[in-house]
């Protein structure tokens, strides 16, 4: 926990330094943080510091048409201070709430797909906003952004990651609510035969379950999602599932032989210096299961030898 706090303090230091030193320049700062309460705390903190440095903070929450450029343009249109190039910092949130499924089958893109499309396309259009723009996303969205908005990604000023510091009641409630919401959407997707949407929802449910420490259920959901992505030929999503499964299996051992499906192939790579993959020791009761199994096997072998030699 202390490591996470220390890391996050360092990230905050970098962020506030970037905000102060990027005035007069377009500076998209992409920040990954899965803990929304931590995120809000950090935002509150840097906005306070920014005000003290005479940098005015503004907020944009992405909606159904998640265009970053439109949000910035709208603010500037309505604000004389921005029109006079006053120093400012923009905080953009709401990406974590964008739907990955198309509620209306006639729509060409889901909200998250539109978001990536807008980012990729309106990169040039952002040039007129010479400010630090702090774009808060989740870790999965950050990973996807690199592929699906590669040009915007290439233009980033910085990439920062905040680690989860707590597992408190507020977060548990949040993940539980998210899981229930995804479950409802999953039923709809299955009914209309939307495989891609089904896989996306299974992945999100797995993420929520993992955060709630329901690791076996999370594993099963990741595996189901992986299978569908594999059938659809979405290799980058298969890889995402593999990485998530690997991380999950680092916390729990391989499943017992009897009655539980085999885990998916685990990717072998974990960055050795990375702060983002946490390994835990196998639990005690699972080691006991392995010992019991060995004992039973030993008895069986002894009985076999006795039977053959009598």
């Amino acid at each position: 926990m202390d490591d996470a706090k220390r890391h996050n303090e360092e990230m905050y230091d970098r962020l506030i330094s970037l905000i102060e030193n990027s005035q007069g320049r377009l500076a998209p700062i992409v920040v990954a943080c899965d803990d929304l309460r931590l995120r809000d705390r950090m935002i509150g903190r840097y906005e306070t510091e920014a005000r003290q440095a005479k940098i005015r903070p503004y907020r944009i929450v992405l909606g159904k048409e998640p265009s970053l450029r439109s949000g910035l343009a709208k603010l500037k249109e309505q604000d004389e201070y921005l029109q006079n190039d006053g120093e400012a910092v923009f905080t953009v949130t709401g990406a974590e709430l964008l739907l990955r499924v198309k509620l209306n089958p006639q729509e060409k893109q889901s909200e998250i797909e539109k978001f990536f499309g807008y980012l990729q396309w309106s990169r040039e259009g952002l040039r007129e906003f010479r400010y630090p723009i702090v774009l808060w996303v989740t870790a999965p969205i950050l990973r996807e952004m690199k592929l699906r908005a590669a040009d915007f990604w290439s233009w980033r000023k910085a990439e920062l990651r905040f680690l989860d510091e707590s597992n408190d009641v507020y977060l548990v409630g949040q993940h539980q609510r998210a899981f229930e919401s995804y479950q409802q959407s999953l039923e709809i997707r299955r009914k209309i035969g939307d495989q891609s949407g089904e896989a996306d929802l299974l992945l999100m449910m797995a993420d929520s379950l993992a955060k709630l420490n329901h690791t076996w259920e999370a594993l099963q959901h990741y595996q189901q999602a992986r299978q569908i992505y594999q059938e659809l030929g979405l290799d980058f999503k298969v890889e995402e599932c593999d990485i998530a499964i690997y991380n999950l299996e680092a916390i729990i051992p391989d499943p017992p032989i009897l009655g539980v499906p085999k885990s998916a192939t685990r990717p072998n790579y974990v960055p050795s210096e990375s702060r983002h993959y946490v390994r835990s020791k196998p639990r005690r009761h699972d080691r006991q299961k392995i010992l019991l199994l060995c004992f039973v096997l030993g008895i069986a072998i002894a009985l076999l030898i006795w039977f053959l030699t009598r």
Partner: protein
Amino acid sequence: MDELEQAIEDCTNQDNKLIFTGHRGCGKSTLLAELSFRLVETQRYFVVMFSISDTVDESAVDHVNILFSMAIQLLEAAEQRNVKLKPGIKNELYRWLGKHTKTESDSAEATIEVNTEAGAKGGIPGFLEFLAKIKSILKVNSVIREEITIEFARKISDLIAQINLIQSAIENATGQEVLVIIDDLDKLSLSDAETIFTKNIQPLLAPSFRVVYTIPVAILREVSMKRNVEAYVKKIHTMRVGKFFTKAMVRSSDRIPDPEMLSFFDQVLEKRFPKSLIDPVIQQEMILKSGGVLRELIRIADSCCDLCMQQIRRQSRLEKFDQPFVKIDQAVLTSVLSDLQISYAQPLGQSDFDTLIGIYQEFRPKDTENQRFRDLLHGLYVLEYRDSAVQWYDLNPIVKDLLIQEGLLDDG
């Protein structure tokens, strides 16, 4: 740039469309802007360069909207540069524009009438406002965009005729040849690019003046798409990343980087911060770690500066004013490169590592059409170089360091 400039000079009436591409961050837009300035200085060309994203939403890019944008941008450039188009032609062109942005046509025509009458009072700002309004409508109003697409898809020759009319009017008024450069078409998805540049390439080749189109570099990897484009244009002009070593020398322990290329990258850095802030050895290491991709050099340098600013800020906050002068040293560079390694490492799986090791060993992938290889190429994990006619691939130096650190490659 010389190659493009020569190709523009060599254009004939039957063959005056150029296709230009290159990897992300290699400096395409900068080169095109520089080319534009160079050609304007000759005073022989009326150059109009614009980004397609200025006029059309990503979801709406098609050959019709590209051509319609061309018309608008040509008229806007003519207004901005005070080109005296014949009033009759001007009215006709503006009425045509107003008509095809339907929902606003009444007010648009009224604007034309007002501005025509107000010509003596300096109507130019009025025309520019009108054109800005048209551009805005095209960008945000999907209904009008679709109507334009439906109408002109059936009779594209009408649209081409209007564009050629604008071209003639400008060339008659200025005595200069029109050249249009359209940037950021390379940001399109491969499927959209296929629809535009293979199924609908002929209308894009139809305007009678010189046009430079950018296309996604991924098209070069799709054999059928590449062939289709090459069937209509002489050559696809490709901008390559900078190359410091030849394929023969790149693995040699006593390799020496190309001095000319090194000097070019040195100059890029020297324009951005004074020499006193960085040791020359560190500067060279920074340049080589970019792999020859200009934007990555800027990113590394920028990140080093940010880290230094962070140190200064920390010192100031702790009131430690007796510290040594902060500059970009080995510790700063190493920290930045380490962060970039982590960023590169995140999306990788085991099969990616196998692919990367294979490319490092063989200087090429097993299959250039493999989608994951293309993702690695476009994500700059793998860089493409050329020695004369020989094309080869190598790892991004930061990705190579990552593999060495993980024990997957030998150091040196």
